[in-house]
């Protein structure tokens, strides 16, 4: 349905019409900019690693990288399968069944949006370490949490919720009429699940899987903090730069890291392309299973409860860590960490908010705009625009950051590297704008995706009508398309805001003394034995995010004041 409808649009309105010269021109400029911000840095980092001076030792680097790549995959593949399994389970339990306390679970499931960075692993050590509260004091065991299993469990907990956010949106929009039809035909519930429900959800499940796989591959903080002897390619990349001062080695490792990420990315696209999927209409169906088996329901709820129990344990323990004298040893109440926090500069928090608001606006707009262009302009380039726009999602942040570093350390936005070695001093590296640019391009795929999904529901006739009445393309865009895309923009803005607040990998090598952000401070503090302060700071960051996101939510749903404020903010930040 959706697919055929889309095809009609292509043939009908715009191409027949005189396409204004300006819009075509802008289109190419736009495409160039997107390629510039997303593709070039990735190519640059690969070239830098392989083509750099003294490239005879490339083989040795590759060998070293291969070992860590094996570790990365050894971790990412099981994590992806397990976390996706749990995420699907959670999505079904929380949206297709009804039971007491479901509201609480649903709210809890949104917690990764406010995840206090890094300290989750610390609370794991305090609970399950050699001297951990549970393992040692309760069970009298002495096991080391450092190593593969520590990282595995931490990633499962955090990535399941990430996958849930993605998969549950598919579950919520399911067209249960197909199930109903199967049921009427007398199919068993199990058969319905495997032949109707799950195939219907294939795009979301695969999308969630990809998301989890990429996040696991890119995660360098968890292995660094509790990996012990087990380090992955991402964390080794960080160690190579900070410990062995070896940028080229890091670039080669990075190029290796890119291979499985891109493969997963392409694979997902390929699988989804083979078959047409039912389009989604905006009608809401009753999601609840009509006659749920009690046994199944209880099992599912029990699994969910265990999962959320661990989540609560993790977050609860972080709160305890922030408010007690000596996390792990002396659990008497204190506010000293917050007093100390207050003595520190607040600037990093201000910078974090500025960055996140600026990037949220810029990136969501760019992404939505990109979606609009791809959707309406069916030139061959459009397909590539989509791929290029989503590419940064497949590139681990730390590698993307190195890409920017090696691209934009040359004058004239990096171009002079390929043409002239000395150019005018327009060098992005070392300016505060570069961290905005990198985040904007890194997250534009969020806006792109939500834009695409909203556009798929839109009635193309509205725009056509405007066009017939003589509105120019540009005008149509501003008066028709943009207002229609507002919900996509809002969703993307929230997601990007939250991601930017806690992002570190991409910007860690690009920060300046004057625009350091809170999450970088937390990372530093945690490595310096002041874990109580680290917990307090992480918690404060989460609280700040929560308050701001609530404020944004109220603003978005509180009529027109909003746009004016946004514009004001925008000017202020960019």
């Amino acid at each position: 349905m959706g697919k055929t409808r889309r095809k009609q649009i292509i043939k009908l309105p715009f191409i027949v019409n005189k396409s204004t010269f300006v819009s075509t021109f802008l289109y190419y400029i736009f495409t160039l900019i997107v390629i510039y911000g997303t593709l070039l840095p990735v190519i640059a980092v690969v070239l830098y690693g392989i083509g750099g001076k003294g490239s005879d030792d490339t083989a040795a680097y590759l060998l070293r990288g291969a070992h860590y790549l094996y570790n990365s995959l050894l971790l990412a593949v099981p994590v992806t399968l397990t976390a996706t399994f749990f995420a699907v389970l959670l999505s079904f339990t929380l949206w297709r069944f009804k039971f007491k306390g479901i509201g609480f679970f649903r709210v809890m499931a949104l917690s990764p949006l406010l995840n206090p960075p890094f300290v989750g692993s610390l609370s794991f050590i305090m609970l399950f370490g050699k001297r951990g509260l549970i393992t040692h004091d309760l069970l009298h065991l002495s096991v080391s949490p450092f190593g593969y299993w520590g990282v595995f469990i931490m990633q499962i907990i955090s990535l399941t919720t990430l996958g849930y956010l993605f998969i549950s949106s598919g579950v919520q929009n399911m067209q249960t009429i197909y199930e109903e039809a199967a049921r009427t035909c007398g199919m068993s519930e199990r058969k319905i699940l495997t032949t109707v429900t799950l195939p219907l959800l294939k795009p979301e499940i695969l999308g969630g899987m990809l998301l989890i796989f990429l996040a696991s591959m890119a995660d360098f903080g968890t292995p660094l903090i509790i990996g012990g002897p087990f380090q992955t390619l991402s964390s080794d990349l960080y160690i190579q730069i900070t410990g062995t001062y070896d940028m080229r080695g890091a670039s080669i490792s990075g190029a290796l890291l890119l291979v499985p990420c891109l493969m997963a990315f392409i694979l997902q696209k390929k699988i989804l392309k083979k078959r047409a999927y039912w389009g989604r209409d905006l009608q809401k169906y009753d999601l609840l299973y009509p006659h749920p088996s009690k046994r199944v329901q209880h099992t599912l709820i029990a699994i969910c409860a265990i999962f959320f129990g661990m989540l609560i344990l993790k977050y609860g323990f972080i709160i305890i860590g922030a408010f007690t004298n000596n996390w792990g040893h002396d659990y008497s109440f204190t506010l000293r960490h917050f007093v100390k926090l207050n003595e520190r500069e607040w600037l990093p928090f201000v910078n974090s908010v500025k960055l996140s608001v600026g990037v949220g606006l810029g990136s969501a707009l760019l992404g939505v705009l990109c979606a609009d262009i791809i959707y309406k302009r069916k030139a061959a380039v459009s397909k590539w625009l989509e791929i290029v726009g989503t590419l940064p999602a497949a590139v681990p942040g730390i590698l993307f950051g190195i890409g920017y570093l090696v691209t934009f350390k040359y004058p004239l936005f990096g171009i002079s590297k390929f043409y002239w070695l000395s150019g005018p001093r327009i060098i992005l590296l070392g300016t505060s704008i570069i961290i905005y640019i990198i985040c904007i391009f890194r997250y534009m795929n969020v806006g792109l995706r939500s834009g695409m999904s909203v556009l798929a529901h839109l009635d193309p006739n509205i725009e056509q009508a405007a066009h017939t009445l003589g509105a120019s393309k540009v005008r149509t865009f501003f008066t028709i398309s943009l207002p229609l895309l507002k919900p996509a923009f809002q969703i993307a803005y929230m997601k990007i805001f939250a991601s930017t607040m806690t992002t570190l990998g991409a910007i860690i090598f690009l920060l300046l003394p004057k625009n350091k952000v809170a999450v970088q401070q937390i990372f530093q503090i945690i490595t310096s034995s002041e874990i109580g302060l680290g917990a307090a700071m992480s918690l404060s960051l989460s609280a700040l995010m929560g308050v701001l996101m609530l404020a944004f939510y109220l603003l978005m749903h509180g009529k027109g004041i909003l746009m004016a404020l946004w514009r004001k903010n925008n000017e202020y930040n960019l």
Partner: protein
Amino acid sequence: MKKIFALLLCLLMAVAVLGCSPKAADEVPATDVAATEAETAEAPAEEPAAPAVYEGDNWSSAYYTEDMKGTTLNLYGVTDNVRPILDAFEADTGIRVEHLTMKNGEILQRLANESESGVAIADLWFTGGADTFIDAAQNGLLIPYKSPSGDVLDDKMKDPEGYWHGTSLTLVNWVVNKELIEERGLTMPTTWDDLLQEGLKGEVSMSNPASSGTAYNVVSAILETKGQEEGWKYLDQLIGQVPYFTARGSDPANNVVAGEAIVGINASNGDRELEINNPHIALVYPADGTGWWPQPVAIVKGTQHEDAAKVFIDWVLSKRGMKVVADERYAAVARTDIESPEGIVDISTLNMFVTDFQANAKNREGILEEWAKHVENK
């Protein structure tokens, strides 16, 4: 047709933008020349027609002028603890210093990148391992400046050409979990050989010398004091005690605080707070000698505020600056003529390994290769 035309125009524009740059490129050497001119112009002014030396309270600088107030300097360093020191400097001079905390290697990498692209973000580099400063000086990333305030420093504490001066001292010590020592009935370690006791097997935490300056310093210091043969024999035994080598120099201390290990080999800048905040932790300085290095300060090449940066060096090496450093970092400092705050280990009572930093930096690759072999044979 129009589309093709648009594309062409697009390309044309791109080329036009690019085309502009060769013209502009000529300007770059010009600014470079200007910069060097400025430098040479300054150089003679330094000696004969020395401007009136500004005398502050316990500090002085020939470069300080009132109009520097409101200037902002950027500083790279390895610890956030420099903040109060920078605030004290601002109170004295009106010069604001913004700092960014990174790991040693990251700073080195950044300076190299920034020098390659000709952007100077940092004016100063304060705190870090002496080996990275030596590396940076050799690669032309620093500007030499022999501060008069640094004259009193011991020769070991500064670069002979003035590329860097030591401020506080980093001492290698052990972070020990007293609780666990008692619980397991072990003897509190006091000498390096005590680390080899049976009960500490798998309980000694040490970082990987390939990625941590602390561990590298320990390894090279042990080799220097015990000699190659004895040294490696000892290291082999030590390797047997360590379950795995952590990635970062800060990890062992964290492991011990969390109870994951009993003894952690740590680089300390005082770390009084670690003891105060964690009653179950003791800091032990090995009785038979320990590794150390100065935490230098240096001016980064390419700075636009060279004079202000020199004021900072003068200030931080002065009695006033060193006192602030000692008080704020709880650290032993390079100057011997100031009063140390209470609770700081007195370096005169310590047995410090003789350390040749230049040789350390030079032999690094060979030692690390050998180290890797010994770890494999474990």
